[in-house]
């Protein structure tokens, strides 16, 4: 390696006199100079990285996209005589353990040994958690005797207890038994769902509003007592007023309860009797069935319909069954609200710092320290921000706000605990370097000539920045914002400390004054993934949900990134041309 590449060529030329340039080229045979193996190692690493990324995205997309596609139901007779029915979810090869092998019959063992001790198995989603106590069952190929796809098996998505796989025995319509008829059941089920929505509306909306107002009245009394003293005339006046209002509200509440009881009683009269593959039956109100379909009799159009309706449910409704089913609307809402709020905080801070660094500061030790600080902000682990957010924002700042403005609610914290405000402030701190760096880049890209032109026309420095530099840099700044949003939307660790919850009782925005409730905890897509994948009773049951949520979150973030990159590229093209 110590010789320069010319030497061997020259040496070779000395031995065999060069007659032509072509001949000389052929003689350059020092393989170490081209470093081909090393090049392949380098290129291989890049290819490996690209394959990893592509494979990763592909796997997430594939799993996420196929989740909602209706699968057929198979009825499997096992060698043990047991019969199961379920959706085949996935299959894989595995090594049969010695203890299992010992228990098998000779024929089965031969089957396994024919495959070098490996066996194929399929995971069936047998559902019916209320009857079996489990949702899934692995079936190895050696224990499977007979597989059929019976047409009378239906799949039910229930409001509670997850899915059910089985036949429909008979119906009860308006209290009278009726023979099963798919059309009839469909009609009655959609009517029952409307009743269910009504019940929901009364429970959540109307009774919720009454409860909220009752709470407000109680707080008003407490507030007056705290401010004026228990026996003061002011407090007594407030209490009297509140008490009369409370009595009124209680009457409304009773009325709503009555109405609820009525609808429920009516609802009880519409039922279906379902039978699982083993013959056990379950009675179910029609209103509890979210969706049902004959899995093995679906046409392509039916399947597409179910697929789309599941996506719609996923995007537009609330979760059920400990978040493993239903939708993620509150999580989407929480993510978006928190991210937007974060941008409100991060934008001025980031832009001002970038302006300082690029336009105002003299480059020297101070800017060097600022840059180190920016870099540190970018490099400090996100969980540390979470700790800081919890300790400083929630406990110190929030605790102070509570003591000043909400003494009547103590010891229950209002701002003194995690909430969407503190979460977005914490994330703002976390993402500010992204905005600073992008804004600096954008400011640097504004041609010097424009600045000089403006100054030469007599504009002051700030006028130049405001009217010439900032508008020109705006797309770049927007890029920074979008990147910051992408970063903030995907961050979970700090949120776990400052206000994210697995199931938020209420959205941060609602119809009650002041409409925007910054102190409320919220749900988040990223945390939803963590929660469903790791905290639910059965991670396998939650897995489809996790994949779909992951896909959604990834799509969100990739879209934001792609947008940012697109804007940046356009910007580059715009400014790379000749300046005026």
């Amino acid at each position, binding site marked *: 390696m110590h010789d*320069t*590449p010319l030497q061997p060529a020259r040496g070779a030329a000395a031995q065999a006199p060069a007659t032509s340039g072509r001949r000389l080229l*052929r003689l350059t*045979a020092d*393989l170490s100079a*081209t*470093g*081909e*193996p*090393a*090049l*392949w*190692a380098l*290129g*291989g*690493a*890049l*290819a*490996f*990285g*690209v394959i990893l*990324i592509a494979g990763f995205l592909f796997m997430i997309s594939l799993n996420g996209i196929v989740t909602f596609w209706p699968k057929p139901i198979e009825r499997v007779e096992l060698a043990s005589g047991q019969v199961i029915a379920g959706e085949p979810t996935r299959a894989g090869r595995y090594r049969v353990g010695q203890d299992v092998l010992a228990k098998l019959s000779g024929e089965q063992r031969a089957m396994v040994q024919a495959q070098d*001790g490996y066996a194929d198995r399929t995971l069936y989603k047998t559902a019916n958690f209320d009857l079996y106590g489990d949702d899934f069952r692995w079936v190895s190929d050696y224990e499977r005797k007979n597989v059929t796809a019976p047409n009378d098996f239906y799949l039910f998505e229930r409001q509670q207890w997850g899915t059910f796989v089985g036949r429909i025995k008979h119906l009860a319509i308006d209290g009278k038994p009726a023979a099963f008829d798919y059309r009839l059941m469909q009609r009655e089920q959609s009517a029952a769902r409307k009743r269910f929505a009504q019940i929901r509306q009364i429970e959540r909306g109307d009774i919720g509003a009454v409860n909220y107002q009752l709470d407000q009245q109680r707080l008003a009394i407490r507030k007056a007592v705290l401010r004026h003293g228990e026996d003061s005339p002011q407090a007594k006046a407030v209490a009297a007023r509140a008490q009369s209002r409370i009595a009124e509200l209680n009457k409304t509440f009773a009325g709503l309860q009555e109405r609820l009881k009525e609808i429920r009683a009516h609802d009880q009269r519409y039922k279906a009797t379902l039978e699982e593959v083993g013959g056990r039956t379950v009675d179910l109100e029609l209103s509890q069935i979210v969706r049902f379909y004959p899995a093995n009799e679906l046409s392509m159009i039916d399947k597409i319909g179910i697929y789309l309706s599941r996506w719609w449910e996923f995007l537009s409704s609330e979760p059920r069954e400990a978040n493993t089913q239903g939708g993620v609307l509150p999580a989407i809402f929480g993510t978006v609200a928190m991210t937007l709020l974060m941008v409100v905080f991060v934008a*001025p801070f980031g832009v*001002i710092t970038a302006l*300082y*660094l690029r336009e*105002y500061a003299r480059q020297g030790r101070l800017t060097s*320290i*600022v840059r*180190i*600080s920016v*870099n*540190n902000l970018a*490099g*400090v682990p996100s969980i*540390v*921000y979470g*700790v*800081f957010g919890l*300790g*400083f924002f929630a*406990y110190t700042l929030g605790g102070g706000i509570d003591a000043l403005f909400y003494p009547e609610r103590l010891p229950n914290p209002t701002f003194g605990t995690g909430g969407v405000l503190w979460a977005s402030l914490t994330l703002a701190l976390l993402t500010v370097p992204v905005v600073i760096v992008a804004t600096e880049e954008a400011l640097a890209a504004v041609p010097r000539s424009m600045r000089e032109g403006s*100054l030469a026309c007599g504009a*002051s*420095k*700030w*006028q130049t920045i405001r009217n010439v530099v900032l508008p020109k840099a705006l797309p770049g700044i927007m890029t920074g914002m979008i990147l910051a949003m992408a970063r903030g939307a*995907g961050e979970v*660790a700090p949120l*776990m400390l400052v206000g994210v919850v697995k199931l938020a009782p209420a959205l941060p925005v609602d119809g009650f004054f002041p409409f925007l409730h910054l102190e409320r905890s919220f749900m988040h897509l990223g*945390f939803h*993934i*963590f929660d469903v994948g790791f905290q639910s009773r059965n*991670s396998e049951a939650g897995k489809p949900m*996790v994949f779909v949520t992951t896909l959604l*979150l*990834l799509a969100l*973030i990739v879209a934001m990134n792609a947008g940012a*990159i697109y804007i940046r590229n356009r910007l580059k093209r715009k400014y790379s041309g000749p300046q005026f």
Partner: protein
Amino acid sequence: MSTTNADEPTGAKPPSSDRQDGPASRVHKRSMQTSKRVIWGEKVAAWTITVGGLMVIVAVLGIMVFLFRVVLPMIGSGSESGRTSYQLDVAQKIQWFSADEFQTIGTVLGADGEVVNFHIPTGRIIARQRFDFAGRNLSAVQGTLERDRILLGFDDGTLRFARIGVTSATTRRDALPAGAVMLDSQDQIHDGQVFTAVQTGDYRTLTPVNELGAVEKLSDAAIVALDYRVGGTVERPTISFASIDALGQARVSQSRVQRNMMTGEETVRTQTVDLPDMGLAANAKVTGILISGTADRVILASDDGMIYRYDLRVFDRPVLAERQRIVPQDVSISAMTLLGGEHSLVVGGSDGSISVFFRLQRSGTNSADGFELVKARTHAAMPAAIIDASEGQRDKSFVVTDAAGNVRVIHSTSDQVLFNFQRADGIDVPARAMIFPRSDGVLLVSDKGAVNQWRYSDPHPEITPKVLFGKVWYEGYDAPGYTWQSTAGVDTAEAKYSLMPLIFGTLKAAFYALLFGAPIALAAAIYTSEFVHPTVRSTVKPMMEMMESLPTVVLGFVAALVLAPLVEEWISAVLLGFFALPMGLLLGAFIWQALPQSVVLRYDGIPKFFLMAASIFVTGYIAYRLGPLFEHVLFHGDFKAWTAGNHGSGTPFMFLMLLPLSYVALAYGFRRYFGHHYRAFLDGRGRAGAGRIDILRWIVLLAGACVLAYLVASLVTALGYDPRGNVIDSYQQRNALVVGFVMAFAVIPNIYTLAEDALNAVPGHLRAGSLACGATPWQTATFIILPTAASGVFSAIMMGMGRAVGETMIVVMAAGNTPVMEWNVFSGLRTLSANIAIELPEAVKDGTNYRVLFLAALTLFIMTFIINTGAELIRQRFRKRAFAL
């Protein structure tokens, strides 16, 4: 700054002077002065932006200062908040005393049965009562841990249970009896009851309750010493007591109270057993007796320094398990007590020494039950003989009193003297002390009724720097060690706060992440910056940048629920893949070398890149197919069983580890000694021909490396080294390998972009110059570009490390979260960040765990601060140098 800014607009003046030369008649006359608004706007803007810019520094410092402020109270020692002393009016020697948890009412019991309830802050007597002992003389008294239930032993061998102290109730503020007299600033007294105002405005009411139980005959001789415990649950309490009489006969009794749920009737069953003779020396006297709450252990001490331990796990058959001298000759055991949780035995000697013993299972001990009392700690000695030791009810602290009137509160686990008090009066009189139930003060009562009260607050007595970062011997452990266990399964077990396993876990995860990530990222960065067409670069780079903002929760989920089971099932294929992938690429390279020049030139660039990718796919598939065979040949068909040390030797693994090393050694040796000859040999053969010969060389080298590696591995095994139990140990599904791999996935984009930026920042003329001199791109890259960009590349790796150190979600989800300290690739770990994420949501604000977790955050902050600042300084220097070139 602001002055220069303000000056600029006034630069508009010169044009005005120009205008005077021109025709002035048509020019509308207007003020040439810059308007005040503009000047002020300018000033405000400059000021705001400067302050805003500097806010970044404030933010970083603010975070650090805030974290530090939360941590600080934990390191500081407690503070004394007040003290009082007075003389109680009692006639007889005080035998027992107790106090309530609010430090309001104390109760003393005199030898003649006189019970006095007094107000602790003022010493005023609230109630006086006399227990009627019916002419018997009190010879021994002992209370339970809470001190309010006591057992009295008499000189005729009888026993009586008693209760002294107070009951607590709440009186509504409007029900406060009229005529209550203020005792001090907060307590009022009325009719023998003490009322204390509490936060809600109501009154806590304490009423003295002193009751004496019936006489029970136990022995014929006087009772010398007693111990009394109440255990079991609230519904089914067990009462246990141990006694020793003047004849040296020790007894243990246990009463089980069973309450009939239907009738509420209580039945008491009492069992008494005589303990076997302890073999007391002729002139020795028993000085203390202790019993555990479940009555399975009794410990006696004598004044000749011997300790006697009885094992009563089979209650009917007590065994003298162990007798041991635990203090030096001529020293007697003058005080002893069991700390809360009943694991640690505190022994005070007549020489002032204080030591703590654990009962541990030891092999080779001559005790009857396999356990032995082992001295775990020696606390700093007191100036005079210890006369009393009493444990705190909340933690592992205890108070000792010596004959010279010194009172010391010691926390046993953290080996720290919390408070040192000095009695001011009547030092010659023996006295005993207790820690108040809430561990916020000490009450000392001398035998003659002198009372001292010290109030203090020490919210974190269990924390010292040594506890956090050093080895601590915890109860129930065999030896001192680093342990993290902030929440224990049992109430009585103490929390263990060593940060070392967490720091270790953090570094371990970061190490494996960089081990996988850094080479790939750097190689990819060099390739992108030096060897590919700019179009490839402009698609690959944004893709990598996008990867940077991928939510790590997604990576963690994939790692834990997809990758970990997969790797576990196919560990042999994964292991083989580590070798097959590079091998495949090298094979590709050598084949490429052997191809005719025309083919090489034609398919260089993107097709070649696709070939590399194809090689990865092919070798990946081969590894998948050959995995079982590979496992069969090297690891007896079961790698996981092999790692657990069930079969086989360490040779196969060492062979794999040494294979790359021996290849490198052989290749280097070949070039060093035969390089010239080889080059001369290849001369004139043309590229493709030389390439064909080079394949041969490679295969020979590879075979040689295999042989060499196997020989060395066998040698190492023969010397007795086995990697198992060290770097390799039993396999867990969520392990460092998976974490490292997925975390590498998170750091690769990071390192890649920064390193690529650094390589790209090397001025183009250097590259052009090198190439113009005839260097190949490979030579240019290794000899010109890399050395120039080295510092920038290094800072990229440091940044990647900073990221790996702080990564949270991946580890939370995929690392198993076991705080262990072992280098095993196949075991789990718990990092600082994961620990915070898991425990902080449940930690009580300002509690010890809360503050320790803040310390963990501060540690993390400082770690990354150092790494990032270092990286940034290096990067700034690099940029300056690169631009100067």
